[in-house]
């Protein structure tokens, strides 16, 4: 296969993988308002666990790792996702109830740094700084895939996984559960006053988001066959935030657009640019700065993203307003729209469809 097509399919893989990662962070940050600066840590756990359960037992491989169960494709991925959720459960139980947004963000970023440090130093866990490698290509033996045909095949598998996860996520965001998430994001106190157990919903959101992170991470290690600590420095979390903010907070389709823009233009474009003589890595640094600048420009001029969050209007809202004798003020900013519609919808609908 020509190198060009090889590259295109790699891009397609990363596009859909970032889409999955962005959906996971979006339900935490975009829908529920949890500023998870440790997101890449959950991705890494998913990746390591997926790799470790698909590798054979570690004796004789020259690597040190736990597990080593030689599990086949969909099962290892799901175990990776569940492992990330388990970490989220542990973190959320300690921190979510006690801390407000910015302290939570501080503790979470600390968590991702410590996790990084721990995995780097404790070699027996996931082979330390070298990371896991030679992870078997999933289903390669079943379909008799060569190294060349594996890339397009797995890009397709990832796209299929992404579409399934997209379907599930759109079900969640449209459900009363998703509506409660958004109400908590807009004003946790109002949601609590309306009888919503804020902690329980935030916990749910963390678990779902971490599961998506784990799946996304698991796909990365299966695609590339290796994963190590250089792949998940805390700055990577920022790239996923950039995908969400550029694409549109709280909009699943926007995330795909964001993933396309950020991932393809800013991360893979440098591969086509000529190196600056004498400074082989300069392009990469400038590129990372550009992502930061792009995000700030986006936040300032178009905080709602390329594709803004859809204004969700409950059909009951009009009847509610009429019966109340109040005028419906049409708000302009997405966040005030959500407050108006979601609180109203909560008052009217949730008792019916949640009980």
């Amino acid at each position, binding site marked *: 296969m020509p190198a060009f097509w090889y590259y295109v399919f790699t891009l397609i893989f990363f596009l859909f993988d970032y889409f999955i990662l962005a959906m996971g962070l979006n339900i935490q940050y975009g829908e529920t308002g949890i*500023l998870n600066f440790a997101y890449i840590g959950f991705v890494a756990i998913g990746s390591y666990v997926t790799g470790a359960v698909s590798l054979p037992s570690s004796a004789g491989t020259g690597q040190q790792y736990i597990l080593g169960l030689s599990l086949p494709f969909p099962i290892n991925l799901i175990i990776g996702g569940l492992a990330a959720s388990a970490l989220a459960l542990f973190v959320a139980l300690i921190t979510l109830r*006690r*801390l407000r947004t910015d302290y939570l963000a501080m503790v979470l*970023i600390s968590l991702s*740094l*410590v996790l990084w440090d721990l995995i780097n130093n404790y070699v027996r866990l996931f082979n330390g700084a070298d990371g896991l490698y030679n992870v078997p290509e999933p289903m390669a033996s079943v379909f008799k895939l060569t190294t060349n045909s594996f890339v397009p095949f797995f890009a397709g598998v990832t796209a299929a996984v992404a579409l399934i996860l997209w379907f599930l996520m759109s079900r969640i965001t449209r459900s009363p559960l998703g509506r409660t998430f958004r109400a908590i994001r807009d004003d946790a106190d109002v949601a609590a006053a309306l009888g919503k157990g804020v902690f329980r919903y935030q916990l749910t959101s963390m678990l779902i988001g971490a599961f998506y992170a784990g799946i996304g991470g698991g796909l990365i290690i299966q695609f590339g066959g290796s994963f190590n600590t250089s792949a998940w420095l805390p700055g990577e979390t920022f790239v996923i935030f950039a995908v969400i903010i550029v694409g549109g907070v709280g909009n699943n389709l926007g995330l795909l657009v964001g993933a396309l823009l950020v991932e393809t233009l800013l991360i893979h474009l440098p591969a086509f640019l000529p190196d600056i003589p004498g400074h082989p890595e300069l392009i990469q*640094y400038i590129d990372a700065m550009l992502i*930061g600048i792009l995000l700030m420009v986006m936040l300032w001029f178009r905080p709602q993203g390329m594709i803004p969050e859809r204004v969700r209007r409950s059909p009951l809202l009009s009847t509610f307003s009429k019966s109340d004798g109040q005028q419906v003020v049409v708000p302009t900013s997405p966040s005030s729209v959500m407050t108006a519609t979601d609180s109203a919808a909560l008052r009217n609908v949730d008792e019916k469809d949640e009980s």
Partner: protein
Amino acid sequence: MAQFWLAFGFGLVTASVLAIAAVGLSLQFGITNYINFAYGDFMALGAYFTYALNSEFLHLNVWIALVGGSLCMGLLAVLFNHFLLGPFARRFNKTFYVLIVTFGLSLIILNAIYSIWGANVRAYNMKIEQVLHIGPFLLTRNQLIVMAISVVMMLLVHLMLKTTRLGKSMRAMSDNTTLAMTSGIDTRRITTITWFLSGTLAGLAGSVLGITEGNVTPAPGELFLFVIFAAVIVGGVGSIYGAMAGAVLIGLATEISAAFFNASYKLDVAFVILILTLLFRPNGLFARPGRA
């Protein structure tokens, strides 16, 4: 036991650096009410400014270069506040936005450092010191100077907060910005001065870290930031004196544990202390009521 006292000495050095950094972060947090996630990179940048003055341009003595580097970082922090963070904080009510901007700023500064100075480890141009035996401790003269700088800075910050008009205004703003504004305090001016102090302390902390470690790297932006957070949270977020105490506690705990367990798990010890604090005293050991 000798090993314990040795580690205690190193702990005091780490605590000195940490205290400068933690107080700088706490000052700014108390005034603007959002965490600066680029603070570790402010430290790294300050250290590189000192490096530039020390080894690249003027070839100053490292202690003079350190003053210059710190002040440069202070001025840069004022510019960051004026053109970037301030406008974002005023425009958006939710702290989300400005937190993400500081996170992004951290990425930009880190990569700017890599672009300008490269990824290689640098070292300050200073004399190689004999190790001094002082009681049970083994310290270099530079480490003693760093400890002295830290103690003097803590005293200065204390005197500024308690005796000057500026410090009084800062404490008032930290308690209640709106009330301070209605009492005639020029909050913009105080905010600018606070950023200058915070940036200067960050630059100073980064530079003395470089001096005590013997090398300059962009690492403070990543791993050291977390240790500062641990100190600040353990001491109680927003409390200056809590930050000092937290710094001493975390500094001693990490170095003493390093003497008895594997030194690569220093950070994990700090994290365990952080988690224990959150579990049993979520507002920190020296919390002020109504925060966190």
